[in-house]
């Protein structure tokens, strides 16, 4: 065998050994066998996925590996994991650093992540112990999720039970309310009956007194008879008064159910008022609907939409309708919102109520027309403002006085010949009541009596 062949054999063997050694060096380098290092340890309750040579990282940077796991002496003890860490990273590992067991994604193997400590904490000495943060296992997460779902289900069951109980309470409240209303009805009937009886008896007593006074000189028996009857009448009055007191006590007594009923009744009345306003709006709409227009006109309702402004002004001067007008100035009724919208002032309601108070002295079936006037701007602007003012006041009248079927609006622009301003113009509204002169005469006669 020649020397070239021997050289090749030598090269083959040496080259092969070198290649093998390179592999060893690469693995050794990863395991920090060729660099300075220090050892630390951390304790964990759960070391899932951690084994000897498991990678250790510091803030994500490869920093070393696990070199040993000490098993606790007794159940409940903690595993102590010893780690070898690069010396050049020592300055980042402080006594308040933590070691956590993490995983490289779902498929990746576990590794120990060291969290760099704070600047103020001292360096951890070689062999020192860090606080370990246990691994989070998928099974634990699933178990926690199941526990959460179980708690949520329990809460829902409890909520369902509470709701059932609440509904039962509602039913009982409704039942007791019904009973109370029935009782109140009975009391009212009793009070009314007693009052009627009292009135009858009082009338009888007065008649008897007159009769007795007319015949007072007729004898002692008659006087005694009057005294007996008076005594019986007073007894009936006392009984009626007791009934009334009893009924009032039931209405205003400290009993919470009654108070609750009153509050609820207040709410119901509020809603009823709103409903009435809606009904009024709807009725107004129906009155203007061609299908129902005839039906309403046969029953005495009127529609001012069909009247021109001049025709309406003619009606104002017609003696057959005896119009009564109350003028309300715009600056005392309205205010403009920041957004430019028109609304009633806070004290406007009181002024409207005062005006309506005067008009309501007349028959309730007399129609009230809210006339709108505006003096600012062009004719179109004036008409729009006049209509808006009239509608605002009409809505308040309907809501406050439930005067739904007998109100209407009329936008008249600026001209108001009879206005108190004296210049034939008006800026505001006028509440105009059209009363039947015959009815007015009858009312006047009755009042005189």
């Amino acid at each position, binding site marked *: *065998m020649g020397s070239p*062949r*021997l050289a*090749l*054999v030598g090269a*083959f*063997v040496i*080259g*092969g*050994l070198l*290649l*093998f050694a390179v*592999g*060893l060096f*690469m*693995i*050794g380098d*990863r*395991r920090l066998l060729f660099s300075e290092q220090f050892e630390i340890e951390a304790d964990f309750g759960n070391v899932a996925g951690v*084994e*000897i*040579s498991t990678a250790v990282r510091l803030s994500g940077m490869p920093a070393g590996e696990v070199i040993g796991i000490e098993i606790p002496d007794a159940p409940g003890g903690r595993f102590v994991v010893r780690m070898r860490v690069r010396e050049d990273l020592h300055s980042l590992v402080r006594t308040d650093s933590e070691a956590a067991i993490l995983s490289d*994604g*779902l*498929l*990746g*193997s576990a590794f120990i992540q060291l969290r760099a400590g704070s600047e103020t904490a001292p360096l951890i000495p070689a062999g020192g112990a860090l606080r370990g943060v246990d691994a989070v296992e998928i099974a634990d997460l699933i178990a926690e999720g199941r526990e959460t779902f179980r708690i949520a289900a329990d809460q829902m069951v409890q909520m369902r039970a509470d709701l059932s109980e609440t509904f039962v309470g509602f039913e009982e409240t409704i039942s007791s309310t019904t009973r109370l209303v029935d009782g109140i009805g009975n009391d009212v009937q009793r009070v009314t009956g007693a009052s009627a009886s009292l009135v009858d008896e009082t009338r009888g007593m007065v008649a008897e007194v007159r009769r007795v006074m007319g015949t007072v000189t007729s004898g002692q028996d008659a006087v005694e008879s009057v005294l007996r009857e008076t005594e019986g009448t007073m007894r009936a009055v006392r009984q009626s008064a007791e009934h009334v007191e009893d009924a009032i006590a039931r209405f205003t007594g400290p009993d919470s159910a009654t108070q609750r009923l009153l509050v609820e009744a207040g709410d119901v009345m509020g809603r009823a008022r709103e409903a009435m306003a809606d009904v009024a709006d709807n009725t107004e709409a129906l009155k203007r609907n061609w299908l129902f227009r005839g039906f309403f006109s046969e029953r005495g309702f009127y529609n001012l939409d069909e009247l021109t402004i001049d025709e309406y002004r003619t009606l104002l001067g017609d003696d057959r309708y005896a119009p009564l007008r109350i003028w309300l100035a715009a600056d005392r009724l309205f205010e403009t919102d920041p957004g430019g919208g028109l609304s009633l002032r806070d004290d406007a309601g009181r002024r409207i109520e005062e005006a309506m108070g005067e008009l309501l002295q007349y028959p309730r079936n007399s129609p009230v027309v809210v006339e709108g006037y505006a003096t600012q701007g062009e004719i179109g602007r004036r008409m729009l403002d006049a209509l808006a003012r009239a509608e605002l006041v009409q809505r308040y009248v309907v809501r406050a006085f439930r005067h739904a079927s007998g109100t209407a609006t009329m936008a008249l622009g600026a001209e108001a010949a009879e206005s108190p301003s004296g210049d034939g113009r008006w800026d505001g509204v006028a509440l105009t009541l059209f009363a039947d002169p015959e009815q007015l005469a009858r009312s006047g006669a009755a009042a005189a009596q």
Partner: protein
Amino acid sequence: MSGFVREVVVTRLARGGHAMTFAGRALRDIFRPPFELKETARQVYELGWRSLPLIAAAGYAVGIVMSMHTRASLERFGAEALVPAGLALALVRETGPLVCGLLLSGRVGAGVGAELGAMKVTEQIDALEAVAVDSFKFLVVTRVVACMIAMPILTAVMNFMGMLGGWTAESAVSGMGFEAYFRAAFSLLQFSDYVPGTLKTMVFGFIIAVTASYLGVHTSGGTQGVGYAATRSVVTASILMIAANVVLVRLIFFIFPEMAE
């Protein structure tokens, strides 16, 4: 009939025992002088050096194919970053040694079986004995030692070329750099993966050389017997090597339990 079966069984057992004695003698004579270094070196050249192109080419190709398969599998889980480490782990632990052993059993087993068989049928072995040369030490032990030296080296070459092929495939797909790839490849490797996986190929080398030598020196039937010995050498050496691998893996897991995890 029973006599025929008994004869076959007894004959096979006797042949097995003979082969075991042959292997035992080869193992013992490795450590006994004379060492026939020159002939051993020649055999290293013949069995090792001349097998280098085959092993390097096969390793490179295997690396490319494994990288593609590994990537295709890991891509489904979004774990492409594990391709270098996964390939290196598979190559170093099992694929490299086994493929290298099979390739060497094909090339060396056939060569040794045919060479020694030819020497046997042409009575060259008898001639060596006639001139007072220990034919067993000169022909068998030198080949066994050469195989046991060449196998780990060839396995290291195979592993390296496999990783090189893996890097070629990976850089074509992801443009990964050479250094980054090799750092990633060795990131999961442990000594317990690398050293036993490489050194166990010495056992493969021993099995290949002993099997081929045994069948070669016991060749009969002229040139036809030589061809028969070469074929049987390859088949028997491959089967014995795979069977031995099972035992060796179990043994390595026993010695390095962390490898089994």
